[in-house]
């Protein structure tokens, strides 16, 4: 049970933190329609996190809110890729594109799980992620020749590889048409490592909940 919870938490934390980062574009995305679309994607990611936390919470005898907000930053299992605060749209789309590429493989693996609860939830998540991928892909195609975007994908690639367990990485490399980074490049990017930006995000994200400990919202 602890092992299943740990696996679910890794994904839930990725989705929550990425959803939070993506939501930072709400109100300031390049144009109104994109603002609506990207905010919606951010909201979906947080929704996926919630469902995953609920499943994990059942195993751990706690609640989704406690898992999402009452752990210390060092206890989160998200990868550095999602923690970074990206103030540039090309960087944001590069991360979105790479994340969706990797996440698809991860969800596909979960859907094949013998654990019916996990497989069922993964199938639900997948139905929404399909549209995230369409969104990511159309942006990636549109920005394909844009030097800022090309450089951003190049820079974020190693961190995106670190999102996946090692056995899924070769498949990601194939899909992206890129070589896998060496282990030295991956130092500090692997799951378990955290950036200072996570603590900052955590502070903001949990501020309301911490203002009245134990309150029911």
């Amino acid at each position, binding site marked *: 049970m602890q092992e299943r919870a740990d696996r679910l938490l890794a994904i839930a934390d990725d989705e929550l933190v990425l959803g939070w980062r993506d939501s930072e574009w709400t109100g300031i995305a390049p*144009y*109104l*329609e*994109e603002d*609506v*679309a990207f905010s*919606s994607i951010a909201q979906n990611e947080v929704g996926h996190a919630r469902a995953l936390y609920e499943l994990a919470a059942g195993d751990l005898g706690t609640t989704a809110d406690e898992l999402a907000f009452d752990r210390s930053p060092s206890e989160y299992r998200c990868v550095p890729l999602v923690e970074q605060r990206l103030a540039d749209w090309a960087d944001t789309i590069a991360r979105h594109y790479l994340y969706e590429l990797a996440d698809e493989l991860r969800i596909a693996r979960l859907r094949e799980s013998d654990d019916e609860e996990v497989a069922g939830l993964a199938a639900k998540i997948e139905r929404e992620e399909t*549209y995230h991928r*369409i*969104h990511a892909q*159309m942006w990636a195609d*549109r920005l394909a020749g844009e030097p800022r975007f090309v450089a951003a994908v190049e820079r974020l690639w190693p961190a995106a590889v670190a999102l996946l367990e090692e056995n899924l990485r070769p498949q990601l490399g194939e899909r992206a048409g890129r070589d896998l980074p060496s282990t030295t490049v991956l130092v500090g990017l692997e799951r378990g490592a955290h950036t200072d930006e996570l603590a900052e995000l955590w502070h903001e994200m949990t501020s309301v909940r911490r203002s009245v400990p134990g309150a029911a919202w």
Partner: protein
Amino acid sequence: MSIWEVFRQERKGQPFQHAGSLAAPDERFAEEYAREQYGRRGESVALWVVPREAVHEIDEFPDELQRNYHRVDGYPLKEKLKEARARAGTG
């Protein structure tokens, strides 16, 4: 960026009605934005996404001879109904 007109169908079998317009760089973006703006709350079962250039607007309807019997308001039914009822003694 070009403008796209979005029509939505609330329930199967019902006519599509104009939902609004949006700006998008191409067809793929337009479809994605239409889905987010007019479909994600379960308010539509289908959408039509149409480039504004594809819409042919007609806004001139000449009626030089005042043939008001062509118009919806040109045929005062109320008065005629009243007279008919009076004749029949049911009014």
